[in-house]
Structure formats: C-alpha cells, structure tokens
C-alpha cells in the first residue's frame, strides 16, 4: 500500500532569518527515513509519465523503487546511468515543469518529490564513496570539449564512458562554468560541484583551465591537432544591459559580474579572498529570472535591503516557483509591473537612485507573454546605492569570430540540430551557446545528445 499523503515530505531548510545572513546551503536534504517515506508515494505507473518529462531520461520509478528497498547506492547507479551530475540536478533542475509536472500524484495533491529523492541518492552515494561509472576500453578516438559547464561536462562524461580520450578546455581558472561562477553556494555548494568534476576526471577526462577558445586556439586547430570531434558548450556568457541612462555609474553590476565576484572569487569572504564586492544598504535587482533571484538573495546575505524590479507580473516571471518562494521568505521585496527608466548618480559617479515607471499588461507578444505597457504619469524614484542588471545573457562571440565557417544565428547562437550537429563537419554544439540562456538540465540534455551523435558519426 503506497503512502497516500497528498503532500510531499517537506524539505528540511535553514530558517529564513538565519539563512538570509549566511552563504551555507538553504535546503538541508532528506533523512533516510524521509526519503523512504517519500519514495512510498510513487505509484510506479506502467507508462512512467515522469520519465517523458526528463531531458536526460532518468529511470525515475526504478530508482525510487531502489530507495524504497533501502538500496540507495543501487538507486544512485540507476540515476547515474542516464545523468552524469545527479547531485547537481537534484538541486537546480526545475522539476516542477519537468518530471514532477507529469507525475500522476500531482493531479490530486503534490507530485512525488523526485528532485529531493534524486538529491538524497546522490548525496548518500557521494558520502559513501560510490564507485565511478563504468567505462569502455580506450577506442583510440579523441574529442575536445570547449567549456566545462553542464553541457560540456555531460558530453565529456558520455564520450569518456564510451572509451574516448576527452579534453575539456575552460576559459576560467576553475572548471564548472555557470555551476561555479553563477549559481550561488547556498543553492549549489561548490565543494559538491568539484566532487562531481573529480568523478569525471576519474573516467579519464582531462581538464585544461585558463584556455580561451577563439583566443589561445581555434576550433579548426583542435581538429587539425587530431581531435575526431569538437563539442562547443561555451554557454551564453555576454551580459545584456537595458540601455537606459546611468548604467555605467559605479554601483551598477551585471548579474554576471556580481555573482562571479561572489561565487567564483568568493568576495563574500573579502578580505580573506582578495576580490572585493561593493554593495549599498539598498539594492535593486532588475529582472525576474533565476539569475535575478540568485543575485537578490546574495545581496540580501551581504546585509542589504533588496528589491526586485520586474516589468511583468509574477505569473510571467521566468524564475522557478521555489526560488521566488525562498526569496520572499528571506525578505526580498518584489516590485512587479515596474520598469526602470534611468539610474541616477551622485556627484562622484555613484548610484543614488533608480527612476522607474509602473506598467500594465497589454496584448500578448509573439511568445504569448502579455507585453508590458508603461502607465503614463506613474514615474517614481527608488532610492538605492546598487543596481544589479539580470535581464539575460547573449552567447560569447569569441568562437563565432574565429570559426568563420560555423553557421550561427543572427543573435549570435550557434546553429545546431536537435542532435547537436552544427553546419561544420565534426563540430557539435549544445547548451546555452545554441539555445540562448536556459537551464542546467537542458544544457546537460544537449551535451548528452551531442555525445550520442558524435558516437554515431564516428563508429569504431
């Protein structure tokens, strides 16, 4: 008889008032007892609708069955067979719009907490030092992977398991891409990302840091040097600005800069680490996505009063429901239907306020989201010392510039089909570099598909 509770086992979390003052992980993870109890809620539907919602096809009911039996390591290996980075996905996947959105239990009540169970299995296996994934003998084929974010790591892992000799080239000094520089410690501990990356290294994957594709080497050179295939997973790293007056004032950051200072450079420990971050007592974050939530919650932890300014309503916010909920709990203020029009500075060139205008929703745009329209005469001024712009990123042009025969979209994305094949022979691409800014799991799905295409196109 399954557990018929209509609600998930709640996730133990740090108290909002406590966690809003530290950078430690917010969600603490299930105990074994909670995990088994939650696993009991799974009905093991014959057609497994949840699996169809997973970009990497994790055998969800099977791993949940293993947890129920108490075979956590077995559960981990089942997840690991399809997902290279389970401890990461269990934390940052938008399960509510993927696997859990298809769960039959979700029709009446809450779906099974698939993400929390995935995390439990991965964390338990890591703590117990579960064996690395199995690997085929070396096949003599070589691949270069550009970028060590979720797309690149996944592609590299899949190819290494198939016996390929894989080298990842990373521009920054630390591997992990957005997992290291973007997503904050309190949502995804960096030690955990490092451990997942060590797992890939134990499969034989080599990682070269401080290696900027398009500068230190080109895609063509990688092919000439004997790589059978090149995968480009360089992400969408170029921050967008609003092009409103005052964006160059001191105190205006792109979310990328603000988060990189904190996450990659550990500025929240300054002066223990050498990189500073400067923040006022009042901070405005522009945008409504996960990155905006991350930036806002980081600013809060540095002691600021934080306001999120978003031009549409909460319904249109692209951030995960859980992130918005956590942000609210921590005391972040939300100003919906509000758009900034200018940032004002003091006589020394530092931000002193942000001018805004209220919006209302008009007709839907081409993507079906209702377009925000300014309300005449509703202008007002928000006093702030720091403004963080989190309105999205564009692909980095360095590779495009130095690989003239690689077809790209007008907006800079690399053209690739659903399997990751680009218009250039032996060159594959996936993740944000192709789709524009999206999620970790979609990038992982793309890396995995591209690896399959590479294996198909380069048979032994």
């Amino acid at each position, binding site marked *: 008889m399954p557990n018929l509770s209509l609600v998930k086992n709640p996730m133990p979390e740090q108290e909002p008032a406590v966690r809003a003052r530290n950078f430690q992980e917010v969600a603490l993870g299930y105990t074994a007892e909670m995990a088994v109890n939650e696993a009991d809620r799974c009905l093991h539907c014959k057609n497994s609708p949840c699996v169809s919602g997973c970009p990497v096809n994790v055998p969800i009911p099977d791993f949940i069955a293993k947890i129920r039996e108490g075979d956590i390591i077995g559960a981990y290996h089942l997840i690991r067979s399809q997902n290279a980075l389970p401890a990461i996905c269990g934390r940052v996947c938008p399960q509510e719009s993927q696997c859990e959105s298809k769960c039959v239990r979700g029709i009446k009540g809450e779906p099974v907490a698939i993400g929390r169970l995935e995390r439990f299995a991965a964390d338990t296996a890591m703590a117990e030092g579960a064996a690395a994934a199995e690997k085929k003998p070396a096949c003599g084929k070589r691949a270069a992977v550009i970028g060590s974010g979720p797309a690149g790591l996944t592609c590299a892992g899949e190819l290494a398991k198939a016996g390929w000799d894989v080298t990842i080239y990373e521009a920054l000094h630390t591997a992990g891409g957005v997992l290291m520089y973007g997503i904050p410690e309190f949502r995804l501990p960096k030690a955990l990302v490092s451990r997942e990356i060590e797992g890939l290294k134990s499969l034989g994957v080599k990682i070269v840091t*401080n290696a900027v594709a398009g500068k230190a080497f080109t895609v063509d050179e990688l092919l000439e040097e004997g790589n059978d295939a090149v995968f480009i997973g360089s992400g969408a790293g170029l921050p967008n600005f609003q*092009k409103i007056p005052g964006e160059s004032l001191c105190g205006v950051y792109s979310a990328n800069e603000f988060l990189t200072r904190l996450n990659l450079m550990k500025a929240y420990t300054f002066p223990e680490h050498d990189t500073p971050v400067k923040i006022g007592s009042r901070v405005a974050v522009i945008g409504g996505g996960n990155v905006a939530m991350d930036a806002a919650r980081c600013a809060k932890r540095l002691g600021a009063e934080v306001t999120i300014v978003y031009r549409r309503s909460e319904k249109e916010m692209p951030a995960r429901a859980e992130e918005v909920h956590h942000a609210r709990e921590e005391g972040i203020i939300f100003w919906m239907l509000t758009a900034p029009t200018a940032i004002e500075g003091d006589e020394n060139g530092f931000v002193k306020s942000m001018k805004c205008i209220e919006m209302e929703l008009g007709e839907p745009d081409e993507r079906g989201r209702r377009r925000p329209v300014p309300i005449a005469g509703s202008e007002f001024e928000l006093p702030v010392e720091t403004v963080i712009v989190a309105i999205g990123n564009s692909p980095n042009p360095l590779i495009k510039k130095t690989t003239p025969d690689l077809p790209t979209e007008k907006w800079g994305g690399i053209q690739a089909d659903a399997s990751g094949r680009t218009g250039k022979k032996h060159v594959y691409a996936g993740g944000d570099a192709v789709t524009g800014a999206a999620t970790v799991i979609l990038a992982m799905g793309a890396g995995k598909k591209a690896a399959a295409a590479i294996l198909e196109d380069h048979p032994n």
Partner: protein
Amino acid sequence: MYPIIRKKVLNETTTLMEVEAPLVARKARPGQFIIFRIDEEGERVPLTIAGYDREKGTVTIIFQKVGYTTEKLDTLQEGDSLQDFVGPLGEPSATEGIHRAAVIGGGLGVAIAYPQAKALHDAGAEVDLIVGFRNEHLIILQEELQAACTNLIIMTDDGSNGNKGFVTQALEKQIRDGREYDTVIAIGPLPMMKAVSEMTRPLKIRTIVSMNPIMIDGTGMCGGCRLTVGGETKFACVDGPDFDGHLVDFDEAMARGRMFRPEEARAREKHTCRLTGEAR
C-alpha cells in the same frame, strides 16, 4: 602553475617578469593582455603583454606596484609560480595603414607602448616614441625603447634628465615643429590619454588609446570593463583594449576606476600586516 623564469627590477616601483605560459605565447600579439592570479585566494588582474617568445613559450609582463595584488606579485621570485595566467585576451593592436606614428607612453604605459612601437617600427613605419617619467631614476627600458623607434623623446616631470615637461607638451612641440603623423597612439594614465586625445582632436589626427579598466574574466562575461565609446557601450576586454581616443568617454572611465578604491585600501592593510607579521 606558471613558473616565473626571470625577474628584473626596472626601477623602484616597476618590475619585469618572464613567465612560462606556452599556450599564451603561441598566439600573443602586441596590444593584447593576460590575466593572472597569484594564488587560490587571489584576485584576477589584467596586465598588458610586454613581450613574448614563442619558442621558449614565455610571456613577459611589466607591472607597477600600485595596489595590493601587484605589491604581492613583486614579492615573488624566479622559480616561484603563478596560480593562473590566461590569454592572450583582447584584440591585437592594428598596424595596417600606419606609416608615421607618434607613440606616447606615460608611467607604466611606457611598458605597454614599447611592444606597440616595436611592432609598428618592425612593420616599416616611422615611429616617434615619446615617453614620460617622474624623474630620471625612474626611466626604464631605455635601450629597448631606442631600438623600437625612429626618434626617442624622454620627458621627465622634474627635468632631471634635462628634458622637463609632460609627454603631451612634447607631442605638441613635435607637431608645431612640423612633424606629421597619420596616427597617435597614447598609452598610460587616463588623464594623459584624455589630454592627448583632446590635443589631437582639432588637428583631426587619428588617435588610439589603450584602456585598462577593472575586469574579472577578460572574456566578455562580467561586463565590469564596460566603457562608453561614441555613445555605445563597449567591453574593453573583447572589443578593445584599443579604442578611438576621440570617442572614449574618459570622465566616465575615470569615475568607474575609482569604484573599489576603499576596498583596495583595506586589502593593502591586510597585506602590510601579512608581510610584517605585525598586528594592526
């Protein structure tokens, strides 16, 4: 790790280091820069490439002790290693179409002006190299500079080398005396580059400046290095570091350069106490 294979003190505030970094040396060109990090706790700091040896796989940097990290870098010796050293970053300086150039270097800018002057000189251009120092004891790279140009003019603020004045005054004099330049390249502190650009603007001489703002990644990711050039936002790391001096908003760049000054002071205090072991 990136070993320091040669260290040379050029003057009391300026040091040269040759660093083993084959991946950077392979592609480096004049005008490009690197970013280094001393250790795991270190910040990422950009420095212009002063020279490179593709065969040895080394890159030369010249730095002035102006802040916490450069002071700390100066304590490293031959045989020590840097944690990180990435590049070449930025666009190389353009040399095409330049036949008669004045290359202006002020302070540490001299170290950056040197490879640019040399590249132009090697490409057959006539190059007047005008460099400035506070006094004659601070003059660096004199032999190298001499070999990298047609005419070398060294100015000192106090006149201790017998040639008193600022680089802008020297440039003005050259032009007044009838020297014709198709291009002026100015590298150094922002006020100097601004002054040169203002001087050449009415004369309509193409003027290129090399910008060195605060940045983190150096690949276009953080946007911290943004500048306003001709009314548009540009990233110094990927669009530059060279820009048209007549289009750069120098006042904004100067304001942005002051953003972290108090934090810099705090980091230096920590440095002092680490070096001396004294409690503050």
